[in-house]
């Protein structure tokens, strides 16, 4: 038995865009245990319900995280709509789905880029982010914002997408599909990437269930769980199957995410094909009273929104349980018995979003 050393990891670290701190207990090169220390990004935004009314809070909820911004906004709006019994126009529901799936593409591409950077594949990082810019351009052209675009509102959406723009979205994602096949084939076939990911960070199906993993983390371990199959938004009208893998290693998680990018492209096309005509927003009257739990499938997995309202402008409670929060126990598990050199890759493999986690 070697001597035990504690190596602090973070909060500022070259591969981490966000601060998280881990105390890694090492025995020679092996990690025995990882102790998390969070709180660097904790703002306490859930408490803002006391100061911002429930309509203003849409903007706060979009700023839980800049990557999954749209879905946070939509999740909050869906909760309030359920409490108030608002019927959202069909067109708005489809438009939300289009933006949500575009967000998924941009989030997964962002992750692929960061992962490539962690391997030391800088030009691959640049290539994936170049492709990602096309999605951001679509956001900008349809909503005016690149990341946080405040298009979702209680009762529907604020902006419509014109038929010309819809055609453009289809052509952009179709072209992107081709380019993506080239870029993602490097991730899936390159021997260096395989060397760094295959068999690294194994999470068995039993462990994933036991630790409550969600999203690609669970899907890559063979758990077929995807909240979209529950048919919120327009998913009930679309045909798709959750993407899963069996191996449960870092490579499988990458496969799942890459698969989800192509799935998202397909879903966007289906949405545009089936997009109904009509209004995009319902006027809301009064204040919400009641409570509701809503679950949506974000790029990182299942997110839970809880809203409790008391009939006044100000909510009693807003709570969000983000996917990264649920994946932290699984991260601590896969860090056990790994090599120190693999720690950055393993942290990235859960697609961490610290600002979501700490809020």
């Amino acid at each position: 038995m070697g001597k035990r050393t504690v190596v602090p990891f973070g909060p500022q670290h070259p591969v981490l865009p966000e601060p998280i701190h881990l105390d890694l207990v090492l025995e020679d090169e092996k990690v025995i245990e990882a102790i998390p220390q969070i709180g660097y990004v904790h703002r306490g935004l859930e408490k803002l319900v006391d100061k911002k009314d429930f309509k203003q809070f849409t903007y706060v909820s979009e700023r839980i995280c800049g990557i999954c911004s749209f879905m946070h906004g939509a999740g909050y709006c869906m909760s309030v709509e359920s409490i108030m019994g608002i019927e959202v126009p069909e067109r708005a529901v489809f438009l939300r789905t289009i933006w949500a799936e575009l967000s998924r593409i941009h989030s997964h591409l962002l992750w692929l880029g960061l992962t490539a950077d962690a391997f030391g594949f800088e030009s691959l990082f640049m290539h994936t982010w170049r492709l990602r810019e096309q999605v951001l351009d679509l956001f900008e052209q349809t909503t005016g914002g690149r990341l946080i675009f405040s298009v979702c509102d209680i009762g529907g959406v604020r902006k419509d997408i014109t038929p010309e723009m819809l055609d453009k979205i289809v052509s952009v994602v179709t072209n992107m599909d081709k380019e993506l096949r080239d870029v993602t084939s490097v991730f899936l076939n390159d021997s260096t990437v395989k060397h760094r990911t295959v068999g690294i960070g194994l999470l068995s199906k039993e462990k994933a269930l036991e630790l409550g993993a969600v999203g690609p983390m669970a899907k890559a371990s063979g758990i077929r769980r995807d909240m979209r199959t529950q048919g919120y938004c327009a998913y009930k009208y679309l045909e798709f199957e959750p993407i899963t893998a069996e191996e449960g290693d870092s490579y499988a998680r990458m496969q799942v995410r890459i698969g989800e990018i192509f799935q998202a492209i397909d879903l966007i096309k289906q949405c545009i094909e089936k997009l109904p005509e009509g209004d995009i927003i319902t006027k809301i009257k009064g204040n919400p009273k009641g409570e509701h739990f809503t679950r949506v499938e974000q790029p990182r997995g299942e997110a839970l929104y809880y809203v409790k309202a008391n009939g006044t402008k100000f909510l009693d409670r807003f709570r969000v349980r983000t996917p990264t929060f649920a994946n932290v126990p699984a991260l601590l598990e896969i860090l056990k018995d790994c090599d120190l050199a693999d720690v950055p890759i393993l942290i990235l493999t859960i697609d961490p979003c610290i600002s979501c986690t700490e809020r």
Partner: protein
Amino acid sequence: MSFNKKSPWILHYDATSCNGCDIEVLASLTPLYDVERFGVVNTGDPRHADILLITGSVNGQSIPVIKQLYEQMPDPKAVVAVGICATSGGIFADCYNVEGGVDKVLPVDVYVPGCAARPQSIIDGILKACDILEEKQKALKGR
């Protein structure tokens, strides 16, 4: 002739940002915006850095980290506050765990507006910081 101005190295730290500005900082390094054409290199090591980009407002936990990063950077150095949260706290100014803008802790040289700050304005901010770096360099030499 300032070497710093021609090739400043930047260090990015996320104080309590929501990620929006962070990924825009990264996006400004990638091919479409390409701040590297100005000789800017992103580094992970404070001891190599000339410009500190901070996104997000500061809280009790991040203040010592920011101070330490700033102290580790060699002179001359410039601080850029990216995004409205780094400027004043923005939408989160009322939160219990938000102390306010970065200027509560460090002398900020350039404020970049926006929520999330756009890559164009981040590049603008970095270039402004380059000029400030040069001035600081001259002042250092004059001593």
